[in-house]
């Protein structure tokens, strides 16, 4: 442990942290510039050796250094790989409407958003496991309603749907982008919906 306060060890620790936190492989020159006059190469070799048999290795390519997971672990790491995709704005809004207005039909979602909802949007949300079809509405045409799943609560860390912040809470938290209502003329008071 006395080694810890050895200047070289401190520099190795610094190199380790820089290489860990850098988004891209770092050139040897850049590393040298960071640590001052001590030659960087022996320190890098020391670090490379230290990690040689670990789950993470220090590798150099094209004069740049980076930490990479050990190649022999590749198979175990690469299982279950799923690609995360960004949700469209339409999908996020649709999910929000289902969450707040469930059970809600597609026509109602469209009425709230003011635009048509493509079939694909609901499919994406269903595939993500956030929504599922609910009961049919007992009105002409018996339209299908949509509701959220338990996985929805799980993903967003909510204990129950009742814990979703209400519109007033959103407004108080600054999440509601609202226009300031102006006082109206006498006799013209707005009747709230």
């Amino acid at each position: 442990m006395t080694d810890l306060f050895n200047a070289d060890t401190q520099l190795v620790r610094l190199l380790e942290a820089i290489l860990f936190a850098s988004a891209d492989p770092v050139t040897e020159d850049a590393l040298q510039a960071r640590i001052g006059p001590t030659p960087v190469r022996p320190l890098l070799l020391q670090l490379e050796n230290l990690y040689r048999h670990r789950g993470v290795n220090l590798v150099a390519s094209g004069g740049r250094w980076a930490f990479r997971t050990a190649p022999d672990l590749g198979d175990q790491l690469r299982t279950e790989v799923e690609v995360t995709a960004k949700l469209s704005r339409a999908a996020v809004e649709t999910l929000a409407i289902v969450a707040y207005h469930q059970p809600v039909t597609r026509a109602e979602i469209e009425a709230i958003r003011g635009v048509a909802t493509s079939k694909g949007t609901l499919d994406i949300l269903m595939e993500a496991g956030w929504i599922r079809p609910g009961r049919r509405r007992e009105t002409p045409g018996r339209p299908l309603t949509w509701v959220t799943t338990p996985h929805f609560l799980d993903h967003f860390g909510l204990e129950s749907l009742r814990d979703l912040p209400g519109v007033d809470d959103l407004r108080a938290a600054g999440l509601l982008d609202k226009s300031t209502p102006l006082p109206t003329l006498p006799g013209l008071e707005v009747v709230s919906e």
Partner: protein
Amino acid sequence: MSDGFDESSPVDEPPAGEALLLDIDGFEGPIDLLLTLARDQKVDLTRISILALAEQFLAFVSEARRLRLELAADYLVMAAWLAYLKSRLLLPDPQPDEPSAEMLAAALTLQLQRLEAMQGVAARLMARPRLGRDRFGRSAPEDLPIFAKHRHDLSLYDLLKAYGDISGRQARQSPFTIPVTELYSIEEAVARLEAMLGRIPDWSYLSALLPGGWRGEGVKARSVLASNFVAILELAKAGKVELRQDGAFAPIQLRARRDGEGGT
């Protein structure tokens, strides 16, 4: 959103004493100001003199008003309450059913301690080695999102923000929320005065007939006056009222035109 960030450091303590007056905006409300004044006493918060504190706060408020500085209502409410507390502390407690002055003072002390505690720990929290400033995570996560049980990276914030946007958009699209100007229309003034004609006493001052709640300064009040002035001219022209003014810029008076009398 921009008001959540500012240039001042969160741990900066406002200057004490007279310099306080230069920086009313630096306080997060009256309790925060009281706390700053209390720190001037340089004793444990449990041993501060509430009486001295009340004096200082009242002095602060009266000085601010002398300098015509804008003070938020809650400062004035606090000043009134402290003035009351001061009188209670100086006089023996008369009503046994009300909380005693000592209890009120103790409650205020606890309130100050609680805020001071939060300001203290807030500073300690902010001084911790923070991720992205003092400590760093892996900036280049490898292409192994093995824990991506969730295929979509959507946070609760994103979801709530989306709903907030929809609600905001809906409110704007609603036909009822077209901004209405705060002006009093001539038609409205005519209709209102006509309805009143039978009930107004003989000669009445126009100023006394203006609708309540529309008096005072500003565009709104001026529009009321202007609309009603034009309205009485219209009504006079239609032969429904008589007008009288004793001189230039004198108050205008009116009365309902009596049946059988001629024009003015």
